Each structure stands twice: as structure tokens, then as C-alpha cells.
């Protein structure tokens, strides 16, 4: 008998009584979604830019490029100076990545980013600094709403990103910038 068959056979009897799947009905908190989102993002160590965000992003990226920083942009209206490669290792020197998020979650400040939107899976992680663009109407209240909205069908990878990468593994001291991006700016348009 294969291991699979053995394992499934062993699981045929379970001492627990059969349990139904519960209905998940939690009322979302809908007041001031953007305000909630901003507070959550701040708690995660990220920064929200909401005044003339697209212009701010464009001029920021233009000056970064002028400084000679390596910028990859997946947002049409923003011009970077690097292309998306087929080999992820080629992005090891990327300073900034500009990517669109599909939706934001007010209760925790996270943004759903997919492989499609990032162009290549490694992009939001390997860059030193991450800039995400989010539409104000795409902010939802909680994870229940968020997961109901996203689809896992057309792309092999998606990630909720909440702030820059961080760790507290040395004496619980919070350090921003572990292996992923060291800063996260969210441009709300």
C-alpha cells in the first residue's frame, strides 16, 4: 500500500465527533476605512501618501532615477530605469520597486500583491525599498472581505504585505529591514 493510501486509511476513523463547518458572519467595521487603513499601516511601519499621490510618486521616482538609483516600475504612469528580467537574481541590486496593489485591508494595513502585478515574484522582496500604489476605492474593512475578493486562479503567487520587513529576534528589539524591503511607502490614489 502506498503511503498516501496508508495515511488516508489511518484517517478514516477519528475519535472526535464530526463537526460542521461554521458560518463566518462577521460585520465589517465600515467607518472611516482610509483612516483605519492609515493607522494600521503606520502600526506596521509603513507610510501612507494620500495628497496628490500619483504626482508625488512620479516626481519622487524621477529624482531617484536622476540620482542613479536602480528603479523597477510596474506602474504604467511611472518610469523606472530597469526592466523586469526573466532571472530573479538579476534584481539583486534594485533600490526601489514600484508595484500596484490589488486591494488594501483597513484592519491590518496590508496590501494584496500578485505575481502578475509584480511582474516577477521576487520584486517586492528583493528591492531595498518598496513603493505600492493603491486605489482608495480598493480598501476593504477586514480579512474576510479581502479573501472573498481575491482570486487565486490566474497567478501562482500572491502576498499580503503589511509594512517593511522586520524582526525582533535579537532581544526583542524591533529592527526594520530584515530580508525584504527596508521601507514601504503606499501611494493612495
Amino acid at each position, binding site marked *: 500500500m502506498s503511503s498516501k493510501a496508508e495515511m488516508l486509511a*489511518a484517517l478514516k*476513523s477519528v*475519535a472526535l465527533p464530526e463537526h460542521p463547518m*461554521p458560518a463566518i458572519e462577521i460585520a465589517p467595521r465600515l467607518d472611516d476605512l482610509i483612516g483605519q487603513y492609515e493607522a494600521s499601516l503606520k502600526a*506596521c511601519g509603513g507610510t501612507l501618501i494620500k495628497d496628490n499621490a500619483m504626482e508625488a510618486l512620479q516626481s519622487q521616482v524621477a529624482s531617484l532615477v536622476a540620482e542613479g538609483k536602480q528603479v523597477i516600475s510596474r506602474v504604467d504612469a511611472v518610469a523606472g530605469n530597469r526592466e523586469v528580467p526573466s532571472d530573479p537574481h538579476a534584481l539583486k541590486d534594485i533600490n526601489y520597486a514600484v508595484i500596484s496593489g490589488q486591494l488594501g485591508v483597513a484592519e491590518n494595513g496590508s496590501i494584496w500583491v500578485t505575481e502578475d502585478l509584480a511582474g516577477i515574484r521576487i520584486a517586492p522582496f528583493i528591492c531595498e525599498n518598496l513603493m505600492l500604489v493603491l486605489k482608495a476605492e480598493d480598501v476593504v474593512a477586514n480579512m*474576510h472581505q479581502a479573501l472573498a475578493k481575491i482570486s487565486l486562479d490566474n497567478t501562482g503567487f500572491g502576498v499580503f504585505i503589511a509594512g517593511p520587513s522586520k524582526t525582533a529576534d*535579537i532581544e526583542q528589539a524591533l529592527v526594520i529591514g530584515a*530580508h525584504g524591503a527596508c521601507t514601504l511607502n503606499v501611494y493612495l490614489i
Partner: protein
Amino acid sequence: MSQAQTSAGHADKADIFCKDEARVDWHSKALWLLRQKRDRAAAAVPEWEELRTLGSEIKLHTLTHLPQYLEQFEANCQKNGIIVHWAKDGDEHNRIVHEILSQHQVKKLVKSKSMLTEECHLNPYLESKGIEVIDTDLGERIIQLNKQPPSHIVVPAIHLKKEEVGQLFHEKIGTEAGASDPTYLTRAARAHLREQFLTADAGMTGVNMGIAEEGAIVVCTNEGNADMGCNLPKLTLHSMGIDKLIPNKAAASVLLRTLARNAIGQLITTYSSFYHGPKPGGEMHIIIVDNGRSEMLQDKLLAESLKCIRCGGCMNTCPVYRRSGGYSYNYFIPGPIGIAVGSKHDDTNTIPWACTLCGSCTYVCPTKVPLHNIIAYQRRLKAEAGKLPYGKAGYMPMVGKVMSSPTLLNCAMSVARFSLRYLPGSLLKPFAGAWGKYRELPKAPASSFEAWYKKNRSK
């Protein structure tokens, strides 16, 4: 570690940890801080108790329908181009991993934190086959360089001070001598590990959740190490215990709301990644592991320990764990959940007694695992198997006899009251054994409870 360090019982190992009183205080406070953060995070969610109930019910539902969900999970994974393997036990898991790695001539594997691979002793196995294994979570990397197992499942190097990490990094990765600033050390580790990510032939992670309806797995980290490890090399592997399965995305939404809040008071982990297919031109493997879980499911109470989502909240609140350290438990998972799932493997038979049965663990658990009930039950199982720890096996049956006979008990109690009243403490203290080591003897009451009750309450 569970195999090597089994000579000393929990109390003996805790004694070693307790020798450095300042460190014990520091350790206890550091973990209590996490408990306080957890309380604040939980209190900020009005539906917190509802989420705990939902978490428990989702897990109970999945655990009682595992065959159907496992098959659904496998079919959907395969539809997404993921290669699925089944492993009855740790040995089979390790063999499968090695086979995949050797087929691809992998020399260096970057791994993100996975308690399951610890459980299977994967690292030493792969190293014995000539494969370099790099743990990439900062805490895991620290203890890997220090040649230690994790002392906590969420903050594995919580037992080390920054000066000790500084010294270790100075020796191993060339940081400045005497430097102990956490930001400096973290940045040095970032640079060191980035080299490893960029030169690895394969990446490997554990699994926080497997979603049956989607053929997807969810991996949660704050550092981004799982994603750096998996999204650079072509080949990725993920080890998943059968208990990590959930039916659908809606179920994931519940657990993602409680996991990080209950672990360290964070709203959500920085990265909650959904892997549901290999990267273009890449290869993705999932190894589904039993290793004793189906056996636990045959016991009504032990089965509930499989609801655990490994947030570590029970350790942070446990008064015994905080004061005895992770290495005093003879199992690679310490604290209350470690006792619940690891007692069977503890050949000193002492860890079920590393508990005051205060119930704090059960109170904080995000999926309502009845931890203190399971721990009390583990004591019963040890007694029934004739495996009471040294000492207890001798006197517990006598205590049982005395307590079940009113005459014997009354007689013993009157002797005790007489002795406490008239004999010197120095003579009596030795009879109190370990209990008396840190405590004063009680004052003898004027009469027995029975006599008092007869006089005041009867009729």
C-alpha cells in the same frame, strides 16, 4: 535534541536555567511583554472571542473530514502544477526531500522556519548527505550558528542576550568585536543571508495553512525570508503536517486575523504569502506529513491539540515556561503545547508535570485547544502506562491509598498537625522534599477540616 538530551528531567534542567536568577527574570519579563502585547491586540478586535470560536470550529471540522480535504488539496495542487508527496513519518519525509534535492543536484538549501522539519530532524539528515542547509529566519540562523535547537517556536533565540549574539556573529560572520546593537547585528545578518539566498539551489519552507479548495499554501513571516528563499531558486519545497489543512479561503481569513495578534500582538505578519503554483520555469513540491498525527486523532482529547496554529501564545503566558526556559522540556516544542504533543516522546516522563494547571494557556489559545486539560490527561496516561517519573512512582500510590481511606487520612493529618505545632522546622523540612525548597512550612490549623465541619456546618 529530543533524542540526545533525555537524561535529566524537566525540574533538573529548569534548575540549571534558574541558577542565573537575573536571566530568569529577564526571560520571564521578555515573554510577559509579548503576552501584554497580545492582550492589547486581542482587546482591540471586538469580535475576538467569536474569532477564537470560529478558529476552533474550523479546525475541528477539518480534522474530522481530513481524508476528503487531503484528496481535494492534492487534486487542486496538481491542477496548479504542484507536485505532491505523502510521508507517513519523519524518515520518509527526509528521504523524499533528499531525493528531490539530489535529482536537482542541490548543494545548498535555504530554509525558512519550520517546526515540522525540526520534528523530522531534517537538517542533520541532509547535512549527513553533504547538502548545506542554511536556516534563514534571523533567530533560527543565530541558534544554528550557536549549534542549538530553538528555545521557542516563534522567537527561537529568545534565551540569548544581544551581547551573546554579538560575540557569536563576531566569530561566525565577522561583525566587529564587542558590537551588540540589534540594528547593526540584524543588518550584518541581512547582508550575510542575502549572499546565501542568491547562491542557493533550492528553497524550503514550512506551511502555516494548506487550503484544500485552492490547492494553495500560506506561509507567514515578518522578515520575508521565506519569500527570498522561495522566489530566487527554481526549485521550492514545502513541508506540511496534515493538521495544517483548512477547507477554503474564508477559513484562512479567520486564522490570519488571530495568528500574529496572538503571537506577538502584531496586526498581521508582514508577509502572508499564498503559493499556489510553481514560478514560470520552476518546480514546486509539497510534502504532506503524518508522523504520529493520525494516531493522536484516535484519542478524543489529544486530537484537539492538532487545532494548534503554532502562534506560541501559550508559551508566552506560561508561568513555568517563562521561568524554566525552552530547553528544560524534553521535546523540541516547549511550553504547554509542547507538553500536549510531546509527552509521549519524553522518556524522562517529567514534562507533563512542568505545569501548574493554571489554565492561562487555554485562556489565550486562538483555537481553544484545551491545553491544561490535555496536560492533566498526559499525567494520567503516564500513570496508566506505569511511567510516573522517578520519585512519584514510589509515593503516589501510597498517597492514593492514604487519601482514599478516611481513617488513614485523619490519622496522618493529626500526626502532621501535631508535628507542625511541636517539632522544629529543621527536622520537618526534609520531609517536604522539593516543595519545601523554596517555601516555608504552613502553620498547623487548630483542628481537622472534618472536625470543623461537624461543629459548624453539619445539620
